[in-house]
Protein backbone atom coordinates (compact mmCIF):
# COMPACT_ATOMS: atom_id res chain seq x y z
CA UNK A 1 0.00 0.00 0.00
CA UNK A 2 1.01 3.58 -0.55
CA UNK A 3 1.63 5.77 2.51
CA UNK A 4 1.71 9.57 2.42
CA UNK A 5 2.95 11.99 5.05
CA UNK A 6 2.13 15.68 5.40
CA UNK A 7 3.37 18.77 7.25
CA UNK A 8 5.64 18.01 10.23
CA UNK A 9 4.99 14.28 9.96
CA UNK A 10 6.50 14.45 6.45
CA UNK A 11 9.44 16.52 7.66
CA UNK A 12 10.18 14.15 10.53
CA UNK A 13 9.87 10.97 8.46
CA UNK A 14 12.00 12.61 5.78
CA UNK A 15 9.85 11.67 2.80
CA UNK A 16 6.45 12.58 1.36
CA UNK A 17 5.38 9.07 0.32
CA UNK A 18 6.48 5.48 0.02
CA UNK A 19 5.14 2.01 -0.66
CA UNK A 20 5.14 -0.36 2.30
CA UNK A 21 4.27 -3.98 2.93
CA UNK A 22 3.48 -4.41 6.61
CA UNK A 23 3.10 -7.96 7.95
CA UNK A 24 -0.40 -9.45 8.14
CA UNK A 25 -0.38 -9.00 11.93
CA UNK A 26 -0.65 -5.24 11.39
CA UNK A 27 -4.39 -4.79 11.06
CA UNK A 28 -5.33 -1.29 12.21
CA UNK A 29 -4.12 2.28 11.78
CA UNK A 30 -2.87 2.21 15.37
CA UNK A 31 -0.90 -0.98 14.74
CA UNK A 32 0.53 0.48 11.54
CA UNK A 33 1.75 3.53 13.46
CA UNK A 34 3.43 1.24 16.00
CA UNK A 35 5.00 -0.83 13.22
CA UNK A 36 6.27 2.27 11.37
CA UNK A 37 7.64 3.69 14.64
CA UNK A 38 9.86 0.64 14.97
CA UNK A 39 11.50 1.18 11.58
CA UNK A 40 13.90 3.98 12.53
CA UNK A 41 14.45 6.93 14.83
CA UNK A 42 12.96 9.25 12.23
CA UNK A 43 9.64 7.35 12.26
CA UNK A 44 9.73 7.04 16.05
CA UNK A 45 10.12 10.85 16.25
CA UNK A 46 7.30 11.47 13.75
CA UNK A 47 4.92 9.20 15.66
CA UNK A 48 6.15 9.91 19.20
CA UNK A 49 2.68 11.21 20.16
CA UNK A 50 0.39 8.80 18.27
CA UNK A 51 -2.78 10.36 19.73
CA UNK A 52 -1.98 13.65 17.96
CA UNK A 53 -1.59 11.99 14.55
CA UNK A 54 -4.59 12.02 12.20
CA UNK A 55 -5.04 9.38 9.53
CA UNK A 56 -6.95 9.02 6.28
CA UNK A 57 -7.61 5.91 4.23
CA UNK A 58 -8.28 6.46 0.54
CA UNK A 59 -8.93 10.18 1.11
CA UNK A 60 -11.38 9.81 4.03
CA UNK A 61 -10.65 10.55 7.69
CA UNK A 62 -10.48 7.43 9.88
CA UNK A 63 -10.00 6.71 13.58
CA UNK A 64 -7.00 4.87 14.97
CA UNK A 65 -8.90 1.58 15.29
CA UNK A 66 -9.85 1.54 11.58
CA UNK A 67 -8.87 -1.59 9.65
CA UNK A 68 -6.23 -1.07 6.96
CA UNK A 69 -7.15 -4.18 4.93
CA UNK A 70 -7.82 -3.27 1.31
CA UNK A 71 -6.50 0.30 1.67
CA UNK A 72 -4.83 1.68 -1.44
CA UNK A 73 -3.50 4.82 0.21
CA UNK A 74 -3.02 5.70 3.87
CA UNK A 75 -2.02 9.20 4.94
CA UNK A 76 -0.67 10.45 8.25
CA UNK A 77 -0.70 14.12 9.23
CA UNK A 78 -1.05 16.54 12.16
CA UNK A 79 -4.35 18.24 13.05
CA UNK A 80 -5.38 20.47 10.17
CA UNK A 81 -4.83 24.23 10.18
CA UNK A 82 -6.23 25.48 6.87
CA UNK A 83 -8.87 28.07 6.15
Amino acid at each position, binding site marked *: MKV*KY*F*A*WVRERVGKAEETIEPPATVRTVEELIAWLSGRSEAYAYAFEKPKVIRA*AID*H*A*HVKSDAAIAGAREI*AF*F*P*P*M*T*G*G
Partner: protein
Amino acid sequence: MTCPVTIRIQEDDFDIAREIAVLTRSRTDIGAVVSFSGICRADDDSAKVAALTLEHYPGMAEEEIRRHADEAVSRWPLNGITVIHRVGRFMPGQNIVLVLTASQHRQAAFQAAEFLMDYLKTSAPFWKKEESATGTGWVEAHARDDEAAARWTKS
Protein backbone atom coordinates in the same frame (compact mmCIF):
# COMPACT_ATOMS: atom_id res chain seq x y z
CA MET B 1 -33.50 23.94 -6.90
CA THR B 2 -30.16 23.72 -8.64
CA CYS B 3 -27.08 24.40 -6.57
CA PRO B 4 -23.88 24.43 -8.60
CA VAL B 5 -20.84 23.73 -6.42
CA THR B 6 -17.42 24.99 -7.50
CA ILE B 7 -14.34 23.88 -5.57
CA ARG B 8 -10.86 25.00 -6.56
CA ILE B 9 -7.45 24.65 -4.97
CA GLN B 10 -4.98 26.93 -6.65
CA GLU B 11 -1.82 28.97 -6.23
CA ASP B 12 -3.24 31.99 -8.04
CA ASP B 13 -5.15 34.75 -6.33
CA PHE B 14 -8.92 35.05 -6.72
CA ASP B 15 -11.12 38.03 -7.56
CA ILE B 16 -14.11 38.11 -5.21
CA ALA B 17 -16.27 40.30 -7.46
CA ARG B 18 -15.60 38.07 -10.45
CA GLU B 19 -16.41 34.90 -8.49
CA ILE B 20 -19.71 36.41 -7.28
CA ALA B 21 -20.55 37.43 -10.85
CA VAL B 22 -19.88 33.87 -12.07
CA LEU B 23 -22.02 32.41 -9.26
CA THR B 24 -25.00 34.66 -9.96
CA ARG B 25 -24.74 34.90 -13.77
CA SER B 26 -28.07 34.42 -15.55
CA ARG B 27 -29.84 33.52 -12.30
CA THR B 28 -32.86 35.38 -11.01
CA ASP B 29 -33.62 33.10 -8.08
CA ILE B 30 -30.71 34.27 -5.91
CA GLY B 31 -31.54 36.91 -3.32
CA ALA B 32 -28.47 36.69 -1.11
CA VAL B 33 -24.76 36.01 -1.53
CA VAL B 34 -22.51 35.75 1.50
CA SER B 35 -18.78 36.00 0.96
CA PHE B 36 -16.07 35.08 3.46
CA SER B 37 -12.41 35.71 2.72
CA GLY B 38 -9.56 34.47 4.87
CA ILE B 39 -6.50 36.69 4.67
CA CYS B 40 -2.90 36.12 5.78
CA ARG B 41 -2.50 38.05 9.04
CA ALA B 42 0.76 39.55 10.32
CA ASP B 43 -0.12 39.55 14.01
CA ASP B 44 -0.51 36.14 15.53
CA ASP B 45 -0.79 35.42 19.26
CA SER B 46 2.90 36.03 19.90
CA ALA B 47 5.22 37.02 17.05
CA LYS B 48 4.81 39.05 13.86
CA VAL B 49 4.26 36.68 10.95
CA ALA B 50 6.44 37.42 7.93
CA ALA B 51 4.96 34.74 5.65
CA LEU B 52 2.70 31.68 5.67
CA THR B 53 3.12 28.55 3.59
CA LEU B 54 0.03 26.46 2.90
CA GLU B 55 0.46 22.74 2.19
CA HIS B 56 -2.41 20.44 1.23
CA TYR B 57 -3.22 16.82 0.45
CA PRO B 58 -4.11 16.88 -3.26
CA GLY B 59 -7.18 14.81 -4.03
CA MET B 60 -8.39 14.46 -0.45
CA ALA B 61 -8.62 18.23 0.06
CA GLU B 62 -11.05 18.62 -2.84
CA GLU B 63 -13.04 15.53 -1.79
CA GLU B 64 -13.31 16.64 1.84
CA ILE B 65 -14.54 20.12 0.83
CA ARG B 66 -16.99 18.47 -1.60
CA ARG B 67 -18.40 16.26 1.19
CA HIS B 68 -19.10 19.31 3.36
CA ALA B 69 -20.49 21.31 0.45
CA ASP B 70 -22.89 18.42 -0.26
CA GLU B 71 -23.89 18.40 3.40
CA ALA B 72 -24.48 22.17 3.31
CA VAL B 73 -26.71 21.70 0.25
CA SER B 74 -28.73 19.08 2.11
CA ARG B 75 -29.08 21.27 5.23
CA TRP B 76 -29.92 24.67 3.74
CA PRO B 77 -31.85 25.86 0.65
CA LEU B 78 -28.79 27.00 -1.32
CA ASN B 79 -28.53 28.18 -4.92
CA GLY B 80 -24.76 28.01 -5.27
CA ILE B 81 -21.47 27.41 -3.45
CA THR B 82 -17.94 28.43 -4.40
CA VAL B 83 -14.94 27.45 -2.30
CA ILE B 84 -11.45 28.50 -3.38
CA HIS B 85 -8.46 27.64 -1.20
CA ARG B 86 -5.02 28.85 -2.18
CA VAL B 87 -1.79 26.95 -1.53
CA GLY B 88 1.80 28.19 -1.62
CA ARG B 89 3.59 30.99 0.23
CA PHE B 90 1.73 34.11 1.31
CA MET B 91 2.63 37.50 2.73
CA PRO B 92 0.43 39.33 5.25
CA GLY B 93 -2.51 40.93 3.49
CA GLN B 94 -2.78 38.28 0.76
CA ASN B 95 -5.91 36.21 0.19
CA ILE B 96 -5.91 32.58 1.37
CA VAL B 97 -9.46 31.29 1.16
CA LEU B 98 -12.83 32.30 -0.31
CA VAL B 99 -16.24 30.87 0.53
CA LEU B 100 -19.33 32.08 -1.34
CA THR B 101 -22.82 30.86 -0.58
CA ALA B 102 -25.90 31.91 -2.51
CA SER B 103 -29.51 31.50 -1.47
CA GLN B 104 -32.94 33.07 -1.85
CA HIS B 105 -32.71 34.56 1.63
CA ARG B 106 -29.78 35.66 3.74
CA GLN B 107 -30.14 33.31 6.70
CA ALA B 108 -29.30 30.12 4.79
CA ALA B 109 -26.37 31.83 3.03
CA PHE B 110 -24.90 33.15 6.30
CA GLN B 111 -25.26 29.84 8.11
CA ALA B 112 -23.91 27.72 5.27
CA ALA B 113 -20.86 30.00 4.89
CA GLU B 114 -20.08 29.64 8.61
CA PHE B 115 -20.62 25.88 8.48
CA LEU B 116 -18.28 25.52 5.50
CA MET B 117 -15.56 27.65 7.08
CA ASP B 118 -15.76 25.81 10.40
CA TYR B 119 -15.24 22.49 8.64
CA LEU B 120 -12.58 23.87 6.30
CA LYS B 121 -10.51 24.77 9.35
CA THR B 122 -10.89 21.45 11.15
CA SER B 123 -11.29 18.71 8.55
CA ALA B 124 -9.97 19.82 5.17
CA PRO B 125 -6.36 18.61 4.86
CA PHE B 126 -4.43 21.89 4.76
CA TRP B 127 -1.53 22.90 7.01
CA LYS B 128 0.04 26.29 7.67
CA LYS B 129 3.69 26.92 8.33
CA GLU B 130 4.59 30.30 9.77
CA GLU B 131 7.75 32.31 9.27
CA SER B 132 8.56 35.02 11.80
CA ALA B 133 11.59 36.82 13.21
CA THR B 134 11.92 34.07 15.82
CA GLY B 135 11.97 31.21 13.30
CA THR B 136 9.77 28.89 11.27
CA GLY B 137 7.18 26.50 12.64
CA TRP B 138 3.95 24.67 11.91
CA VAL B 139 0.81 26.38 13.17
CA GLU B 140 -0.91 24.43 15.93
CA ALA B 141 -4.58 23.59 15.69
CA HIS B 142 -6.85 25.55 18.02
CA ALA B 143 -9.40 23.89 20.29
CA ARG B 144 -11.71 26.84 19.55
CA ASP B 145 -11.88 25.74 15.90
CA ASP B 146 -12.92 22.21 16.93
CA GLU B 147 -15.57 23.71 19.23
CA ALA B 148 -16.84 25.92 16.38
CA ALA B 149 -17.20 22.88 14.08
CA ALA B 150 -18.78 20.74 16.83
CA ARG B 151 -21.74 23.10 17.27
CA TRP B 152 -23.10 22.02 13.87
CA THR B 153 -23.53 18.46 15.12
CA LYS B 154 -25.52 19.49 18.20
CA SER B 155 -29.26 19.12 17.98
